[in-house]
């Protein structure tokens, strides 16, 4: 499925630097194979919405294993940047490269499509479906996973016993947790997360932070926006869109 020439390695059981996630009864099982991400380069990226320039000539290079926090005041274009990087929004100028190839055509586009995971503001959770059905479908959009894995992932995010509950019965924080359970299921090496901590309680935030750091330590790449401070985490790069302009 993946390009054979790329480096492939098996992930170990992630080591959590902080406290263990809530409701974790046994260590997570990782059977999947992950592709090591390639460097991501933004080259003179610009975004214009209705004649208003949100940012322009934004260039940076992200290496595997890095966590990038996109910061800035409301309306500074954080979400737009993430949507451009995910491929939902075309930039008004500039290019983005993944492993040296532009993500807008050819091999670069295919690689990027398969290797980045985007979880936006709207968590893509259907109220009429149960947590398990939601996750089964969302994962099937890239590669299908088994029921067993889904139950384990739900346990990781503290939703044990909620597998068969229709999601409209869940609270906003619980819905967000269902969406974030994808981070424990899917094999994408690059995560693009828009405000992942919204509506999540303290213990959940800590567990998620640990999971993000573990992902980075194993060579994964995380690009995220959050109003929640990440200063206490080591090695998080920060891109302030408010200052960049």
């Amino acid at each position, binding site marked *: 499925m993946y390009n054979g020439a790329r480096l492939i390695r098996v992930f170990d059981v992630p080591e959590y630097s902080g406290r263990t996630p809530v409701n974790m009864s046994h260590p997570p099982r990782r059977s999947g194979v992950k592709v090591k991400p390639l460097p991501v380069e933004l080259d003179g990226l610009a975004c214009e919405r209705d004649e208003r320039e949100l940012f322009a000539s934004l260039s940076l290079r992200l290496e595997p294993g890095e966590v990038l926090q996109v910061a800035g005041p409301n309306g500074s274009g954080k979400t737009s940047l993430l949507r451009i990087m*995910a491929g939902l*929004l075309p930039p008004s100028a500039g290019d983005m490269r993944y492993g040296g190839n532009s993500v807008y055509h050819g091999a670069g586009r295919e690689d990027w499509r398969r290797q980045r995971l985007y979880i936006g503001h709207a968590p*893509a959770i259907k109220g009429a*479906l149960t947590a398990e059905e939601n996750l089964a479908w969302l994962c099937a959009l*890239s590669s*299908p996973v088994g029921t067993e894995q889904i139950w384990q992932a739900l346990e990781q995010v503290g939703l044990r016993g909620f597998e068969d509950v229709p999601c409209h019965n869940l609270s906003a924080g619980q819905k967000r947790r269902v969406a974030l359970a994808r981070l424990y299921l899917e094999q994408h090496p690059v995560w693009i997360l828009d405000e992942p901590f919204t509506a999540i309680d303290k213990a959940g935030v800590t567990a998620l932070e640990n999971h993000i750091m573990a992902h980075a330590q194993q060579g994964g790449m995380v690009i995220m926006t959050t109003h929640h401070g990440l200063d206490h985490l080591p090695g998080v790069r920060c891109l302030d869109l408010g200052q960049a302009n």
Partner: protein
Amino acid sequence: MRRIIWLLFCREWRLAWRRPGDLLNPLVFFALVVSLFPLAVGPEPSMLRAMAPGVIWVAALLATLLSLDGLFRSDYEDGSLEQWVLSPHPLELMVLVKVLHHWMVSGLAMVLLAPLFGMMLALPASVLPVLVLTLLLGTPILSLLGAVGAALTVGLKSGGVLLALLILPLYIPVLILGTGAMDAALQGMPVIGFMLWLGCLAVLAITLAPFAIAAGLRIGVSE
């Protein structure tokens, strides 16, 4: 590829099944519009018979349009569409499956109910198979074309009237062919030509409409 089609089909079934009211509403609307006409023009059977093809087709047109308005909106609002667009699977195929599923739960029911209304509108029994067949060929076209409009208006809060404005002119050929076939059948003339034309348009719609729908959704999601 086959797997994702199957999974999508199951997902759509589950969603439809858990909210049966949404399925029933267009059907009730269809029945209601058809019943309005005898009340408006009188129960004279000869008059009803002359009007029946037009009434049934216009009611089917409006009911399809009404049911399509929300086709993509809930997926758009909860972020599901973003995930569809980002998926490595072709969006065109996924929307085709979704629209065909929608047709199976709404259009097909209308086709099956149509003979009943045909009888209520004093159509002779010999014409009813033609009615079913034209609707069977025509309603998928209505669903696919309407889905293009639904995709283009997906980001708008109140798309209903706008959707009708965009799509009803495009429905005209189907309306003409469908009612033409009925009129021909009523006069005892052959209808095979109409059927072939409707079949032609159905093939054309199945081939081309998914691209327009997918393009519309990509545009809507990029807002």
